[in-house]
Each structure stands twice: as C-alpha cells, then as structure tokens.
C-alpha cells in the first residue's frame, strides 16, 4: 500500500531552554495536555546555546522538523541570550530556505514556564505543518542511514 500523508509520522526535535520552555513543557505534562509523540525534546541551558550545526545535523540525520523554544524576548534568564538565538535563527532559516528546506520545517517559539497550554498548542501546530510538508530528504545524508 502506498504511503499517504496521513500515515506519515514526522521526526521532530525541539530544543528547549532550561528556564522557560523546558519548564513550560513540564507544565503541559503536569496538566496532561496532549501533543503528538513525534516531538522529542532536547534540553539546553538557553536558546542561544543552539548551534545552527545542531539543526543541520538533525536534518542530515533525517529529522523532518526542528523547533527552538526559549524565554520571551526581554525575559531571558541570561539577559539577552534569546535575542542572539532569534538573530541567528533568522539567518539560518533563510539559508535553509535557499537550500530548499521549506520554512515550515523550522520555527522559533517563545514559551514561558507558565505557558503549558501554549507549549502544547505550539507543538500541535508545528507537527501539523511539518506533517503536511511530508518527509524531508533534502539534506539527508544517506550514509547516516542504518539500512
């Protein structure tokens, strides 16, 4: 049977800053708010710790979407880290667009520790967007494939 878009389950990595978004994700859990299991979270101290190379690596390894979550601008635990992240990611995303990676596959979202519902909703909508785009093979390094 041919694979249809509905059956496709994307691989999604979410980089969450320790102080706001990771706590927001925990709150979504505490409140039992469902979001797709396709999202797997990697904890980083600050959104500014997310090296563009991590995102390229993820796409190379076959991820279908990458989302970076940090504290709201102005609320960063490290004063200005999320501003760095915002600037870096704007540049990276436009470069990824140039390489043919659709804009929908990457996103930056600001989620505070008190926004469990927002975290779940953001993940829901991101997974939907990526699922609609389908599998990402553009940057995939076939040598990384196990089979």
């Amino acid at each position, binding site marked *: 049977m041919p694979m249809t878009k509905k059956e496709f389950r994307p691989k999604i990595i979410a980089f969450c800053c320790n102080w706001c978004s990771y706590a927001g994700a925990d709150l979504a859990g505490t409140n039992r708010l469902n979001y797709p299991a396709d999202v797997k*979270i990697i904890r980083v101290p600050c959104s*500014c710790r997310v090296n563009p190379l991590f995102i390229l690596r993820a796409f190379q390894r076959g991820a279908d979407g990458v989302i970076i979550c940090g504290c709201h601008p102005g609320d960063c635990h490290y004063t200005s880290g999320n501003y760095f992240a915002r600037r870096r990611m704007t540049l990276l995303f436009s470069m990824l667009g140039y390489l043919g990676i659709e804009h929908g596959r990457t996103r930056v979202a600001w989620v505070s520790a008190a926004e469990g519902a927002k975290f779940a909703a953001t993940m829901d909508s991101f997974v939907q967007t990526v699922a609609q785009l389908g599998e990402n093979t553009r940057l995939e390094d076939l040598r990384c494939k196990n089979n």
Partner: protein
Amino acid sequence: MQKIGVFVCHCGTNIAATVDVEQVAQALGKEPGVVMAVHYQYMCSQSGQDMIKDAIKEKGLTGVVICSCSPRMHEATFRKAAASVGMNPFMVEIANIREQCSWIHKDRQEATQKAIALGRAAIAKVHLNAPLTAGETPVAKKALVIGGGIAGIQAALDIAEAGFEVDIVEKEPTIGGKMTQLDKTFPTLDCAACILTPKMVECAQNDKIHILSYSEVTKVKGFVGNFDVTIRRKARYVNEDKCTGCGLCTQKCPQKKIPNAFNLNMDMRRAIYIPFAQAVPKVATIDPDHCKMLTSGKCGLCATVCTAGAIDYKQKDKFIEQKYGAIVVATGFNPIKADAFNELGYNQSKDVVTSLEYERLMNAAGPTDGTLLRPSDGKHPKTIVFVQCVGSRDTTCRGKEYCSKICCMYTAKHAMLTREKYPDTDVYVFYIDVRTPGKGFDEFYRRAVEQYGVHYIKGQVGKVSPLSDGTLEVQASDLLMDEQLKIKADMVVLAVAMEADKTARPLATMLTASMDTNDFFTEAHPKLRPVESPTAGIFLAGACQGPKDIPDTVAQAGAAASKVIGLLVKNNLKGNPCVAHCNENMCNGCSSCEHVCAYGAITYVAKEFKMPDRTIAIRRVAQVNPAVCQGCGACTVTCPSGAMDLQGFSNREIMAEVDAICL
C-alpha cells in the same frame, strides 16, 4: 568505554500505566555500553536510591541514566545519591519520561517507543559526559554600598546589623541623598529630616559602617565574593579626622556668592561649606573652583580661624583599594531639567519652579526659612498652578516614556500643605491621570480634593507666559468640561520626571550590570529576583532600578541587604561547573565571544604556543572565568573557530542526543 546503568522508574502508575517500562528496560539494556537496565516502582524512594548506589558499587558503573520524571524535579536527588558512593554527580543523566511522555501520550505503544528514544538520547549523552567539579571561591566578608541616600543608608544599616562590615561610598560631601532636601513625606506628612537624620547618625555611630563621603568608585574588578574596588577619595582640603564641624570657617569665608546646590541654587553659600546643619559626616568641604586660596593662593582665612587646625590646602585626591564580597547599587535619581519645556516658561520666569525647588521653598531649613515666598519678588503667592507629568509619559525626545510614579503623590502633598499653611491661596493641579497605587495613597489624594479644596483639573497646560505685572498666564485645556482655560497665577510648579543619576551608566559598565534604555538598572528577574542584578553579587536598592517612593525604596534596600547577608555568611561559594571552556589551540583571538558575553566572563591573555617548526609563537587566546560564567552558551555558538564549548552541554553531547533521537 563507559559502563552505564539504566534505571527505569514506574512512578507508581504515573509512568507504568502508559509506558511499558519492562520493554523500555529491555530495549535500553541492548544499547552499547549499558551493562544493566532495571525497572523499579519508585526510583526516588530510599530503596530506589539504594538500588542505584549498590549498582554503582557492585558493577563499577561509570555512568547512570535514570528514566523518570523531569530533571527539574529529581535531578539533584539522583546526583546526590550517586555522589554519596563516589560517582561524579555529572555522570548522571535523566530521561524525562513522565512530564514529557507518559502524561501527554495516551497510546501505550507510542509512549513506549518515545520513552526508549529519550532513554537512548540520555545514554548517548552519558557516553560523552566528563566528570565535572564545581570550583570554590572564598568570600570577602565585607559589603560595598554605592550611594548614600535613604536606600544606601538602609541597606548599610541592615547589613551592619547582621555583623558585617559595610562601606558607603557617596559622591557628595554628606550622606542623605535626595530625601534630605524634602520637607514632608507623603502620605503621613512626617518631616523628612526628622525620620532621616536619626538614621544618618546611626550610620555614623555604627562601628561596622564606614562612610566614604565625597568619594567615587573608579574601578571594579573581580566577581561575586571577590570584588576588587578602587575608590577615589576626592580632596576636600579639610582633614576629616580633625574637623569638629563647628562651622566657624563657613561664616568667615569671604567668598560668599556661590550658588548653593543643596537649595537648588536659590540662595548662596561660601567657598568652604557644610551642605546643611545635620550633614553626616559633619565636616566642612572646600569648593576648589571658588576658593581664593586654592585658585590664586591669596586668602587662607579659614585656616586662621580653624582652632582644630583641620584645613589642609595641600590635600590631594587619594585612591584606596578594597575587597568586597557583595555590592549594593543605590545610585538613585535626579529630576530632569525643565529647560527643554520652553512653553512652560521655566527659563523665562523665576516663579516657574520645579517640585524639588518648591520643596526647598516650603522647608524650614530652606532659602526662605519655610515661608512660601515667590522667588522673583518675595511676596506671598495667591494662586499656584501645579503641572503634572512634565516630561513623564512623554514619547517626544524631550521627556521620558515611563511614569515617574511619585509625582501625583508629592503634588497632592504640596497642594495640601500649601492650602493648610495659607488657606487663602488658590491651588490648581493639572493632570493627565492621577495615579495613587500605594497604601493610604488614594485616601491622601482624596483628602487634598475633598478636605483641602484643591482644584484638580484633567487637562494639560499648553503655555505659561510671564505678564508685565509680574504674574503668569497659564493657558490650559479642561478635558472634562471641554473648554480652554486661562488662569492668572503667581507661581507655577512643574512636577518634572525622574531620571536615573548620571553616574549610573558608567558605574553599570564597571560592574557589568545591565541597564534598560532609560539607564535604570535591570533586575535578574522582574518578579522573582527583583533586588538582584543579573550579575551575581550585585544587588539593587532604590530609584537606581526605576522610579520609587520612600517606603518602596526602604523595603527594597532591606531586601537587598538580606540577599547580601545571605551571601556573606557563606565561607565559600560553589560555582556552576557547566561553564564555557576555551580550546586554546583552536582559538584565534577574534574577541567575538568576549563581545557576546553578558557577564564579562571572558578575557584575553597572551600565551606562548609551540609551533610545528619548534618556534614559539605568542597568541591572544580567550580565557573563561568559571566563577563569573553563568553557562548560557552564547559564546559557544558565536565562536567562528569552534574553540569555545560548554561543559555539561558540549557540542558533541548535544549532537549525540540529536543523532540518538533521529535514529
């Protein structure tokens, strides 16, 4: 190769109901480097922790992965348990399979697969983890308070009360700050001097507190627990230890036409002066710009009359160096200059005054001895117009965008006091809004309106023009009645905005404490850490952080003091070992990391390197001070050569997690 133990927690049914823990343990047990994988009902319980400890001892584990609740919950618990049997606590990683898995997914198969993926990521990370040790630094048991206003005084008193030494550095010849210039305080109408001067005296008499008045901080180095501060003690040409404050010199000095800054230049003082009668320390200061002896060498009268022999014309600025464990910033505020508001006539008429000037005119120790007299002709004013929000809530470049917070209240106070002292005076207050959020504040304002008959008019003053008969014509709009007003007034009082003291910006640069666009100090967290600066060891008190009234200032100063005490009672400070680290062989000395570091943790040193041809080259390389680095990782991504990495969240560790998840 690591020997990793995996421990999967059931968390009762919190995890086990949706995640097949047995399957997770089985799958993770097959991962490379994993020598054991077990599941247990409550991993965080005493018996669960003992299970981990025993496994570490018996199997000689080098790394531990715990699949359980969020690391924000029990990371510390498990790390402590591991450390108790000799494992480095940073070799323990947690896979969050409760908050971020079992609790949000309903499908058992899906949740189990995700739990396995998260466990694999944690194992991949542990493989690359290195043992980390937090550095310890001793704490210098002394605090520095910068600014000797009510905020600084209160903070110093509270710190000294706890038994620690405190130095107050104040740029003026006396402590006391703006509060010394006030007449009465709202909403209790206490006499400002009566509540402040006892505190000033208490400071002077406390042997733990050292007042360094007429001094400035010129250099700050170091970090929390160990600040090295250089303080310039400006020459006051009077020996502080000898001067008795008798004031004879200040009466005999022939140079007596110098505008008195303490009274906002509304009267004159001499070249040798004591700012006001209750000054602390009560010693004279010579104004070097106006003293005949210092400028031309012809006078020396004060030295002749001084029986204590305190005058010393040869005194020079002195620089002293001190070590402090913590610093409280209390640099305070200033009213903005009213000169920019041409339409309000501040420059055209002496009878247009700012609120602080009005305060001096009402003050018994002021230029008019407390009788309200017009500055131009010394007559009693019959009609007074108060203009609020002059330069506050002003988005033009002349003023400040923020609300200055205290003006509504002090204008109500002025209006009330004026009506009480001179009931035949007509008092008008023009306002945009009246803001009275404080205990007893609204009742106070209503008293001004209802009991004292002050005319409050919602509207703005458009123009104040001096008339030929010496009065002022005030043109204004009344928004509620929708009409234009013209009032003939004898005096106009401008409630000008508050701005941060001009010394705050250079000081913030020295302290690497961050500021907002208005030069107010930023707090570490606006709600949860309101008295700390984001830079560790720097605390904030009073109006240096934003417009504040006296009760708020005193409360904040006390809070800052308690934070300082909490820091100073420690003998050693344990650092966070997850800090940036520079690979000096790769560093090209470009300074990018230094520029992004919000904490000033990165400096550059010249180092010798052996080149392949056995010559020695000297290169500039980055050095991270682990005591200052907060571990955000901004530098690691900025570094163009990839020399900078973050311990505990290294590039390789995070990449390994990415790989494991994408598998």
